[in-house]
């Protein structure tokens, strides 16, 4: 089954007098349970593609399908609902809510989904334990290191078991050891729950870790390699 299908996507930004083609007639398919790395130099279009797949940004033309459902024609509210139910995000800047504790940040999505308090509390504790943050549940983001915050962000993305996780430069602010640990965690979640991962990065160590590597340049796919079996 195809988890993500992008057909002939175009997205152009205007910066001053310059027209930047972030996506240039780009098409890809990602199967359910796929583990894909998007790689490009800065400005190559990988973040724009992730945003288009996640419904955070609408392409100028082309189609985006998630699990057989076309999303680029949906309203803001419908896209929010889709992200809530099907997609988990891991951002480069973590994007945790600073006034909430680690556990509350992880619970947030489930709270919006309407999961009862006791159930979501237990799930949050378990998933924080799973990402190696047992005992740090009541710390706020400011009281945690970059690696710990990124793990909270991962826990928040996976806790409601979304079909698709989109990660934008998840290791950019992490040291190599923490980065390896995070990639191992992604691999475990991918194999254990058949979660589809699309990870945008230009970190060579991350690229080496991921079975399918898609290289992008100026909004186009220049290479799509199956490096090794998942």
């Amino acid at each position, binding site marked *: 089954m195809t988890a993500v299908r992008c057909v002939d996507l175009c997205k152009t930004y205007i910066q001053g007098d310059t027209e930047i083609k972030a996506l240039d007639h780009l098409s890809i398919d990602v199967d359910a349970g796929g583990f894909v790395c998007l790689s490009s130099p800065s400005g190559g279009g990988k973040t724009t593609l992730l945003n288009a797949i996640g419904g955070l940004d609408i392409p100028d033309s082309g189609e985006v399908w998630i699990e057989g459902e076309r999303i680029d024609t949906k309203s803001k509210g419908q896209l929010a609902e889709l992200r*809530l139910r099907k997609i988990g995000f891991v951002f480069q800047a973590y994007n945790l809510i600073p006034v909430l504790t680690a556990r509350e940040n992880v619970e*947030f999505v489930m709270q919006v989904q309407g999961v009862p308090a006791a159930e979501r509390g237990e799930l949050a504790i378990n998933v924080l334990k799973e990402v190696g943050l047992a005992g740090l549940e009541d710390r706020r983001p400011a009281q945690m290191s970059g690696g710990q915050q990124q793990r909270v962000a991962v826990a928040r993305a996976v806790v409601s078991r979304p079909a698709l996780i989109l990660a934008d430069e998840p290791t950019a602010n992490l040291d190599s050891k923490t980065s390896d640990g995070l990639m191992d965690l992604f691999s475990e979640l991918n194999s254990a729950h058949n979660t589809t991962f699309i990870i945008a990065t230009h970190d060579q160590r991350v690229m080496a870790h991921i079975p399918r590597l898609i290289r992008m340049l100026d909004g186009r796919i220049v290479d799509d390699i199956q490096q090794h079996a998942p």
Partner: protein
Amino acid sequence: MVFSNVLLVFMMSLQFGMYGLMVDNGLKAFTGHIQIQAPAYVDDQKMRQTVPDVVTLAESLREQLQSDFVSARAQTFVLASSKDRSYGVAIIGVEPKFEPVVSSIPGLVKEGRFLKSNDATEIVIGKTLAKNLRIGLGDELTLLGSGLDGSFAAAVVNVVGIFDSGVEDLDRSIAEIPLGLFQDIFYMQGAGHQVVITAPNIDLVPELMARVQALVPEDEKHVIHDWNRLQPGLKQAIQADMSSSFAMYAILVILVAFSVLNTQLMSVLERTREFGIVMALGLKPGRLGRLVILETMLMGLMGVVLGAIVGAIVTYYFTVYGLSLPGMDEMAAQFNLPARMYPQISIATLLAGPMIVFLFSLLASLYPALRLRWLHPVEAMRAA
């Protein structure tokens, strides 16, 4: 918001307290709260529009109401002449014993004394009239007019008191003589023009009115009017004052609404990044907008509750101890009025202002809430 609510509670209570005082003092000066008159007298104050046996009627009411706040009167216009000058004057026949409890004029006699006997040939006049006629205490005044039967009526009376109400109209054009003397001079044959009744306070007027109506059924000889009918100008003055005050309150409410709008707008702008994050995670813009409105609602409710509580405490203090402004004591003493103003606290004065502030605050939060509909999660997450 709390401060404005306290201010609204206090100002509205004080305003209604002042209206009470205005009505009370305005009516106590002369009109009273209720009058029994001949049916056409209120619109056409002619000598012949009389209430028969007016003193007997007043006595009977005092007995049945078990209240001394009832007094009979008669009234006509005469030419009052001193040795040097003559002026047209409204001459009022009053019961010397009971007039002081229904009118403040006896208390305003600054020179001499008020009337004592029901038949004595004495008169109390206003300060301006005394000045115009160039007379003083002990001087004689000649009254010339028409009797009830149309005959010529005349009398010579001694000035025993001069009152100073501070109201130029009253001081210039009114004089009071004993009712017995009035009835003799003007051949009234026991008749008069009004029975004046006052209630302990303005709120008890409807109840007193009902009791009087039960005791004195309205017929071709008697009608009963309350102060609204007797002094429509007083109510109109209050309504005019209320309109201007409400314009001031409206400005205050609009200022509060703008400050809430500013606060909420700033609070939304400051949290743009957080709002971008939660929208990216799946919170719908509409739900986020409702959260902002709910936040304002909770803030507003807190403002209403705290404003009403603090406002009630502050206002209650002044309902007990009163409020006196500089210079008010002297002015009040001059007009025989209380020296202090007392706010009138009620559910309406406690909650009306804060509730309106609350509603306007909610309205003011709509714009910041609606702005969230146009928020773009990706751009919002880039906000500092």
